């Protein structure tokens, strides 16, 4: 790796991102509220995984896998409670997302827009695919996995993630 390419792999700030717990709670609840309310009027927005984007953001900015695990598990379990599937499906997937996001944040500059876009895309695809694997393996649900559609939605989610993360930076 050359010196010039290191800036992408080096975290820009060594200190952890400090977010007030109240703000974290409000943002998480708003993301969940967005997911359950907005698709009533704009159905195409149901593919916007706001709780996932919020999980990724907080896990990236906390720069600690343990925090990512706790944030992912909490948001996932609340999301599970509002779905009709057994509790734990979103919890497990978002726990893993939170962990990996926290892990990745220690090696990349997560304030770089390109990195954020790529991570948003990657974690959306990972989230959808792993949820499908869990639903098939643990619950015996047999709906197919549409990889192309997931890729497109991943790009859309990543596109939304960039400005959303920028707004959350201001909190």
């Amino acid at each position, binding site marked *: 790796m050359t010196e010039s390419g290191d800036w992408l792999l080096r975290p820009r700030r060594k200190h952890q991102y400090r977010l007030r717990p109240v703000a974290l709670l409000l943002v998480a*609840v708003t993301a*969940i*509220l967005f*997911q*359950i*309310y907005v*698709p*009533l009027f704009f159905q195409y927005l*149901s*593919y916007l*995984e706001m*709780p996932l984007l919020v999980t990724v953001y907080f896990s990236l900015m906390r720069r*600690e*896998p*343990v925090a990512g*695990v*706790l944030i992912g*598990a909490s948001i996932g*379990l*609340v*999301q*599970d*409670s*509002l*779905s*009709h*599937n*057994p*509790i*734990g*499906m*979103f*919890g*497990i997937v978002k*726990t*893993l997302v939170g*962990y990996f996001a*926290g*892990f990745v944040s220690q090696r990349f500059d997560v304030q770089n827009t390109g990195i954020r876009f790529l991570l948003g895309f990657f974690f959306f695809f990972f989230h*959808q695919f792993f*949820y499908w694997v869990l639903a098939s393996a*643990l*619950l015996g*649900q*047999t*709906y197919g996995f549409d990889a192309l559609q997931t890729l497109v*939605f991943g790009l859309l989610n990543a596109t939304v993630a960039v400005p959303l993360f920028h707004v959350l930076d201001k909190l």
Partner: protein
Amino acid sequence: MEIFFNRYRSLTVLLAALVAQLLLLAYQVKTNSDVRLIRVWAVTGVMPLARVVEAFRSNTTGFFSEYLVLLDVKEENKTLKSQLGSLKMENQFLKTELATADRARSLAAFQSRSPSRTIAARIIGTGTGANSKVVFLDRGSSAGVAKGMAVVTPDGIVGKVISSYPSASQVILITDPSFAAGVISQKSRVHGTLKGQGHSICLIEYIQNEEQVAAGEWFYTSGDDRVFPKGLPVGQVKIVRPGKMFFKEVFLVPSGLQQGLEEVLVVLEGVHQTIPDSQETPQTLHLLPAPPADPNAADPQGVLSGNLSTEADQMLEKYRRTGEAQGHVFGKAGNKPPNFNVPDPAAVKPPDPKPAVPTQPTNR
């Protein structure tokens, strides 16, 4: 041990979180039960916020839209066009009001007409997850809504309640892949099982290839599932094709979801109804009267004259005549069988040819 946990702290926490959730999941799947407490907390915490947002939206939409329209009108023309804009807005507002009133009236009319006891509810949220076909209603167990109750509109069935909380309830829509309901066709009363597909078209399973179902045919609830009362409209068949195994592939467009979902009825006490008869009007077929018999025409087999045509018919007729000539009554028990070897009475004296009678025109 402590050094190990400190060194692999994040991995340990991850594994602990995963194992705990897997155990929770396994418990729910194995016992087929739900961790109700967590759901009650989440629903009670989130749904009141959704209700507040919905109330805020419905109350402010009219105000803001009117305000924006008036701003546009100001820019264009402050006199006539402002009046026109106001009238247009008012018209739009009244139309919306009318539509809402129509919807409410049709819901109320259906509610009063239906023998089932129902309660009106409003949809205040959807379920989480991209593929989710779940909605939340603003009526819960405190209003008498319980798990397993049917949710309908005057146009058709919508779904069923899968969880009921004090202030809200969760409804799985008929388009969800895990939804199933017993249905019956209107014309030929063919039974099947309706299953959601995750999109706007549903599939009806277990209809054998030999059974008659046509595109455009209506399906109604059969009441077999003990959730939906019999006789509620489900939808209209869009595509029918023979399946690969024994069953047809019947795709149906659900009628309950076509007008959009805003207000629904929860069936508190269902009463089975009869399936309405098909509205299809019978097509009349005009037939001309039969042509008059031609006395000069050769009719060796007696087709036109109404006489017997095939050899088997002629033989049967010969046996009948022979039996009658011997006083035998066919079909009577204890009768002595006739002697069919005696000469045919008709051979001695041929019967008079039957004159052809023109038939009246019939409508079928």
